[in-house]
């Protein structure tokens, strides 16, 4: 197992290298002179030159890249050009919001998608199957920002049940926190539920036609036991993989959803950084998002291998 883990980590080094080059290159060509952002329009040329020297902008681009990588490895993400706040502190306050949003969305998606997928597969070609499959297609086609907007119109503006925007940390007021998360979680979870539902249905259909399921039935096992114990356990392996691989889409969805509900997460940090031409902020947030995707993909890969004993690890 450790050999396999090590091999996967070594294999991902070139990918991480490419990712870091892309992030660095893209954020370094952001339009606008950073000295104007820090010093404003009325600073002298001498002040600007000193700041450029200070920020290392006069170094060759390769040196700048290596310095950036060195700082990242030592946990130093730099400072915001606008607020001068350490990026690490910004990440520390925003990361929990995005993690909470994505985890709750994932839980909602699984709790809707898996049971509905099982029912759709068990009742194949019946009204229940058609309804579940249609709902999945609708869920997957709903743009995050539109669904978010419709929820605000209905639950906040029309019925006044939930706050339309804003965020309260869980440790400050758990109830208010959950209230502020309901609509964003439904927004992302609905689309994800569609994907989980379809994957569960397909996997269940494949498993239900296997010999061992027929054997279990012929032995007189109760249908509930056949479905839950024999079929679902095996069908969940590809479902778990899809859930893991959807982390990228979830985090992409979080960016837009955070914008709709004014949630102070990583997504709004990226968007705020882009509009403020604050390249260290954009760099820091994107680095964390992509690292999270890479790590979750790696864990998914390892989990898949661990869950399915047929997969040889080394």
């Amino acid at each position, binding site marked *: 197992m450790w050999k396999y883990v090590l091999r996967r980590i070594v294999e991902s080094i*070139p*990918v*991480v*290298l*490419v*990712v870091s*080059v*892309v*992030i660095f290159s*893209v*954020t370094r*060509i*952001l*339009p606008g002179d950073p000295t104007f952002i820090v010093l404003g329009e009325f600073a002298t040329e001498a002040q600007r030159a000193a700041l450029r020297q200070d920020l290392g902008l006069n170094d060759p681009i390769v040196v700048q890249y290596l310095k950036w990588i060195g700082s990242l490895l030592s946990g130093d993400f730099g400072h915001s050009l606008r607020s001068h706040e350490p990026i690490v502190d910004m990440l520390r306050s925003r990361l929990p919001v995005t993690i909470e949003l994505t985890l709750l969305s994932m839980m909602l998606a699984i709790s809707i998608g898996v049971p509905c997928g099982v029912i759709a597969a068990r009742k194949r070609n019946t009204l229940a199957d058609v309804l579940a499959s249609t709902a999945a*297609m*609708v869920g*997957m*086609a*709903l*743009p*995050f*920002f*539109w669904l978010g*907007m*419709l929820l*605000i*119109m209905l639950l906040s*503006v029309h019925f006044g049940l939930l706050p*339309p925007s804003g965020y309260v940390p869980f440790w400050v007021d758990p109830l208010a926190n959950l209230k502020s998360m309901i609509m964003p979680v439904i927004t992302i979870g609905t689309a994800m539920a569609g994907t989980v539902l379809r994957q569960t249905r397909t996997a269940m259909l494949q498993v239900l036609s296997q010999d061992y399921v027929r054997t279990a039935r012929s032995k007189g096992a109760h249908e509930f036991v056949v479905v839950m114990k024999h079929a679902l356990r095996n069908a969940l392996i590809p479902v778990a993989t899809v859930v893991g691989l959807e982390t*990228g*889409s979830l*985090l*992409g*969805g979080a*960016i*837009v959803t955070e*914008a*709709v509900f004014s949630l102070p997460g990583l997504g709004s940090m*990226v*968007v705020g*950084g*882009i*509009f403020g031409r604050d390249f260290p902020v*954009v760099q820091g947030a*994107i680095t964390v*998002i*992509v690292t999270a*995707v*890479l790590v979750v*993909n790696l864990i998914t890969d390892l989990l898949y291998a661990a869950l399915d004993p047929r997969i040889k690890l080394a």
Partner: protein
Amino acid sequence: MTSASISSGDTAAMRRSRGHLRRVLGELLHHKLGAIGLVVVVAMVLSAIFAPWVAPFDPAELHYDAVLAPPSARFWFGTDELGRDIFSRVIFGSRISLEIVAVSIGAAMVVGSAIGLTSGYFGGWVDRVVMRVMDGMLAFPVLVLALAIVAALGPDLFNAMLAIAIVNVPNFARLTRGQVLSVRNLDYVQAATALGASHLRVMARHVGLNVADNIIVYASLRASTALITESSLSFLGLGAQPPIPTWGSMLATGMDYFDWPWMGIFPGLAIFVSVLSLNFIGDGLRDTLDSRLYER
């Protein structure tokens, strides 16, 4: 074998490729959801092309007597905060959205296929380096990479197109490479090489043509993702800039006018119906191709 016989082989391959696409399209029309998707998308493309004749008003025309007017016989989808007809703006908005999707997916298809073709055909260190770069780009969530590129280049219509094209290049490169690896060592390719055909000729005429239909089908599957990415960029203010009407930017404006819900509902509905139709086509194509695979 002469060069003339190679040419006739090329023509046969081309005919086979076109014939295959036509057959797939024919079968798609017999797939219930695929046919619905195709009809809706064709209708949308036609309304986008003939927008000046389909839309009742100019999308920028201000109706001072009907600011924020609800849907009515005169203004089917109501009017916005400046009194502009939302139905006309949705119709003209489809032009921008479909143009961005078509151009960016077309460009990604051409560039990605060329990269995948070269990488898969030559193999070796070229393949290893190119594919690691593609893997690196694939590690980014689509919207995050698109956002970063637009941020670097500046928000406008062309840069949004470019960003969507760039984020889709690795997908096409990966697919093409896989397809090329499966035909690279077939007899007819070996024969063409043995007859002295240049690498470029073998790649373009013998290998490329035989993987082209699968790539075109895949392009239709990527279209809905491209549409969502474009709408998201516009919604965040990083797509086409005002006064160009886009569905995403119209929806973003609607976010400030919750008491006038039609401002956001109709542009969102347009995105939803388009994405759903493209997904229907994608599902139909997948089912059609899967059943062909099982038949083999």
